């Protein structure tokens, strides 16, 4: 019966991967199975970067882009040559449930993806604003700034989607048609950041200013070829087992606490706030 449902052979299911919350690998796998229907469409055709913690998140983990040795032949991979490192990397593509379950069985905690898809890696289909607060900036303030950004985008006629980062901040994503280069999308995000910084003195838009206490950084730099964003529904490797969780903009207004969204309560809401993200392809204003 086993091989009909999944090609994956589970191992070390009882191993505890989140010591503080006593979460076993079986629970990690179960979580990823649960969010698979919402997560897979997003992951499809994006070369993955993983963080794996075979001995639990309290122990040393590792960042992995290359498909590891012993990767089964049924796992889809894609070779990508990098000019800067002059090496090719054999990336994993997660286009189906089996692959996602296999990744979870490898003690993959975080799944990161580029903002573009494999058939056109240099033309992003997503624009990404990383709203990153520097303590003592609170999550309420961060949420306010994030809503300010939404308003700005709304006024430009752009629909945006929001998720918690799973750590302190929020991620705002705009789906676009695939005709712009990363340079163009990066400039666009930087421009908006600068405008926001001018309008609100809590906000900074330059990397050099990020460590100023209490400031909130609108990071544009991830809009680059080879950079990644943590995938919606990915777990984060923090003791509270939080999730980078897609939200309804209304939830943000209600004052949701990003650290409250974790492996135990994510994926239960009936509505998928990011359902339309992949259908909504938008042009940037001239």
């Amino acid at each position, binding site marked *: *019966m086993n091989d009909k*449902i999944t090609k994956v052979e*589970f191992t070390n299911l009882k191993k505890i991967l989140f010591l503080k919350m006593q979460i076993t690998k*079986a629970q990690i796998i179960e979580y990823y*199975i*649960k969010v698979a229907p919402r997560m897979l469409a997003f992951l499809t055709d994006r070369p993955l970067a993983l963080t794996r913690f075979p001995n639990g998140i309290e122990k040393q983990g590792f960042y992995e882009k290359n498909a590891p040795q012993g990767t089964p032949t049924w796992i889809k991979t894609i070779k990508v040559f990098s000019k800067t490192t002059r090496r090719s990397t054999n990336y994993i593509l997660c286009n189906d449930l089996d692959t996602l*379950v296999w990744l979870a069985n490898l003690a993959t905690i975080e799944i990161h993806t580029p903002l573009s898809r494999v058939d056109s890696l240099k033309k992003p289909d997503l624009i990404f604003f990383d709203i990153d607060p520097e303590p003592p900036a609170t999550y309420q303030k961060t949420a306010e700034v994030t809503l300010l950004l939404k308003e700005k985008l709304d006024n430009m006629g752009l629909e945006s989607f929001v998720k918690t980062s799973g750590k302190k901040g929020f991620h705002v994503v705009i789906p676009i048609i695939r005709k712009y280069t990363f340079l163009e999308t990066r400039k666009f995000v930087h421009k908006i950041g600068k405008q926001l910084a001018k309008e609100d003195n809590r906000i900074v838009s330059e990397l050099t200013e990020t460590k100023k206490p209490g400031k909130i950084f609108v990071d544009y730099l991830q809009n680059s070829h080879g950079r990644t964003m943590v995938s919606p529904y990915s777990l984060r490797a923090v003791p509270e087992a939080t999730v980078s969780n897609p939200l309804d903009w209304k939830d943000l207004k209600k004052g949701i606490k990003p650290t409250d969204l974790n492996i135990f309560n994510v994926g239960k809401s009936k509505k998928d706030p990011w359902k339309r993200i992949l259908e909504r392809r938008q042009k940037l204003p001239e």
Partner: protein
Amino acid sequence: MENKFKTNIPRRPIWTGNLTIGLVNVPIKVYPMIYNRGLTFRFLHRSDGHPLKYQKVCTKDEKVIPWEEVTKGYEIAKNEYVIFSKEELDAVKPESDKKIRLDKFIDYFSVDPIYFDKSYALVPNKSDEAYSLLLATLEKMGKAGVGRITMRTKEYPALIHAYNGAIVLTTLRYSYDVLNPQNFEELRKLKEPQKIELDLAVRIIKDLSGEFDITEYKDRYKQEVEELIKKKLKGEKVILEKTVDEEARGLMVALRDTLKKLERK
């Protein structure tokens, strides 16, 4: 395939000679009786299916060494060897005098089975009368003869006894090859049990006593693999059924639900 698993008579005796009791000689042939009928697999090259072979590789430069260049060394200290040629070792090999001298008869069960090593069937070598007389005597008295036998390069103590209508030779282990359990401190410290407890334990064991039939025990792993071999030969697809533990079973249920959801989309 069927033949491979059938018990066959070995083609050639591994030893021929005489059983000697005083002045009486009984010519016999010796055949091995004990087989290890486990499964043997060959290592193959996964991509082309050809068998792999072993090579002797020098630990210094990783070069493959041909047989002519191989010699034996006895390690006297770490990385220090006394070297022997084949001729030198052959010269000191114990010469078998082709005789199993029986110098004593004892009760078979007075030797603890822990010393029993390997059993061999002794078959008359044109000596039917003498053989059958010795066999009948051993059976009648329940005795076993004690002697020694030299096989290949080694001399073994041995018992000669009757088993299932045959004279059987069982080589014995040397006492120094068997660990004395009293070496364990835990065992030396054991206290005598109370008499009441002992009586009770004896009653329980008496209640649980039964007959023993070795044929009830089968190597189940071997049977499963033999089944698989048969199926593979017939070209049937082998479906792997792994026992799914409890945790995995929960995951299977979650998987099935999720698959249904994904199909609906």
